[in-house]
């Protein structure tokens, strides 16, 4: 029988994340991206992985797992190089920064 914690984990796994590409402006410096997020007027430093995740989620909503596969393909990385847990961490940090947000249930049901 799954525990409550496992239930939360599985719920997290199916959350789709989205972002509005119009909401930020970015500039790249040596594989680091300076991102100005218009809604909050905050500036963020993103490395290649977190910026890649932001771009992918901005182009199409993705779950942690689909985003993981897309990042592996985009950057030609192996699963050893990029474990799923690191993608989950990146997603969490992007969410905390307000750069991405979960797709609303209303949007999912429509």
């Amino acid at each position, binding site marked *: 029988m799954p525990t409550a914690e496992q239930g939360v984990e599985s719920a997290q796994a199916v959350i789709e994340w989205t972002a509005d590409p119009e909401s930020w402006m970015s500039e790249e410096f040596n594989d680091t991206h300076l991102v100005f997020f218009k809604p909050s*007027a*905050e500036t*963020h430093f993103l*490395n290649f*992985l977190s910026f890649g995740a932001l771009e992918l989620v901005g182009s199409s909503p993705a779950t942690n797992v689909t985003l993981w596969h897309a990042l592996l393909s985009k950057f030609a990385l192996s699963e050893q190089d990029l474990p799923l*847990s*690191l993608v989950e961490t*990146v997603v969490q940090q992007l969410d905390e*920064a307000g*750069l991405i947000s979960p797709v609303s249930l209303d949007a999912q049901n429509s």
Partner: protein
Amino acid sequence: MTEQPDTPELDSEQQKLADRRQLLRMGAAGLPMVLTLKASAQQVLISQLQCAFVLPRRVRILVNCNGAAWVGNRRLRYRNGQGWNVADIKAFKENADYVFPSGTVPSSYRPTACPEVVCDADDDNGGDDNDIGSGNGSNALSELDALLNSPMPSNAAEIASFAAGNRRSKDDDDDDDDCDPEWQDNGYARYTISRNTEIKPSDYLGNNGGWNPSGSKGLYIILSLSYANSYGNAGSWPGISCVVSILNYLGS
């Protein structure tokens, strides 16, 4: 011609991939993948303008028709058709924690008429008792501007008695002994703000940087500005440091 292999670029790509792998290892070890600049100009603006404070206890503000105000916590009974309880008014004024002189409160917050039976003396405010009629609130902001731009009062009688415990003297000859009616019609307006009410001064800031007070909390802001105008950050007026920080930001 034999085309030279583009080895420098390949090396660069390999180096880039190696750097990325190193970064990913550091990320797996806990290196943040997203860094946010917290010390932006926006943050400074928010920290100075977005302060708020909570009133530690209920605040009652009594305003007379001349725009003087008494701030305290005692009861103030009012009966429809009869008016204010004279003894309550007298006790409230005598035991007020803070007293503000005539002209402090804009007309929109004043009672619509002065008392028909004068049972207390407002002369101790140094104000001109008879020059203000029924307030209609139309010039509240200009009055507030005039207040904030006015110099500090030089006459001791005009200076509000702010310090807690600095009660007015019992023998200040306020003619209350001649006051026969128990209830007094008109002449005062009462505002009450509950204990633990949060006040955010920036809610009363207009787009042009001027103040736009409304409601009981707006009146509290007006009195706070008057207090700050005379005493700055000193004293125990709840929320004064927040108001002063905003005034400093606005360059007032």
